């Protein structure tokens, strides 16, 4: 009784596309580079003063977040079900954060 006989076994099929060890290393490198850029930016007063500082940091960390989730957690390759569960929860969580920050006047419309 093999796994592949399952109709819905996306997982089984997807395994072939998993990145290899070297690709994982490249991903680790990318993550490191982004982190370095983030910290570097923190020490440049001109950048910190710019209105783009916070958005840029958030974009960078979102990118790291996405990379880890998609590749290290294999979400990109795994069952659609997991994608639905995770992104669904994440969307509710994000909306809650944004709404709370708005309600406490940390964000304005």
């Amino acid at each position, binding site marked *: 009784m093999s796994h592949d006989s399952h109709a*819905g076994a996306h997982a089984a099929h997807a395994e072939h596309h998993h990145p290899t060890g070297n690709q*994982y290393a490249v991903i*680790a490198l990318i993550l490191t580079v982004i982190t370095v850029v983030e910290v570097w930016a923190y020490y440049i007063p001109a950048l910190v003063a710019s209105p783009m500082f916070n958005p840029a*940091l958030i974009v960078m960390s979102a990118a790291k977040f996405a990379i880890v989730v998609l590749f290290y957690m294999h979400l990109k390759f795994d069952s659609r*079900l997991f994608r639905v*569960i995770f992104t669904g*929860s994440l969307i509710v969580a994000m909306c809650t954060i944004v709404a709370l*920050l708005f309600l406490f006047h*940390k964000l304005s419309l």
Partner: protein
Amino acid sequence: MTAQTAAAHAQGHAHGHDAHDAHEHHHYTTTGLDNRKVAVWTFIGSECMLFASLISTYLIYKGKSVIGPFPHTEWTDPAGKVYKAILDIPVTSASTFVLLMSSFAMVLALQAVQLKGKPLAPTAGWWERLQRSSQFWLLATALLGTVFLGFQSYEFTSFVHEGLTIKTNLFGSTFFTLTGFHGAHVTVGVLWLMSLLWIDRSRGLAGKNDELLVDICALYWHFVDVVWIAIFTLIYLIK
């Protein structure tokens, strides 16, 4: 239909439950996915809301503390004593890097278990060989996690020395609680990794069921890592 024939009938379909071992993936599931993996993903979904609530609280209370020390600015208390901005970016950057690398090690640990039993080309270099060592990567992950915890306890103790405890002000309460919750998650993760390592050393991790054991631990571990990615930016870097 008598009981005996019914039993026989059912037995015919009771697909070889020969040894009745704990390898649950032999069980039929509707989606073909393992129950434990489904449960872990829902658990992670739930954790999203947990950390969302903690992070929101930190951000809501940011700048609301009536007394210092403060995260990004100096503070002079009524007696004239000066407290410096308390967050230590270089140290935390280092610990962030450590945690990122632990995720890298974790993904290789999983790969190593998955590659068990697959032939290794005779020409393989040290890197290919190393990639086959699940024990190495499990240990590396656990160690990096421990180093991260070391950084965190260093951070916590130095904050306390500088006059910030969990009781001092809103910043102290929210900061220690948020990072403490994260630290607790890392601790659980390290213990989990150690037990996997222990299994690996005692009987070797191999086969679908063991891959799954490592996989769900890895999912948890990476999730704890991505939470830190968010915390590092939102709490440490943004002023």
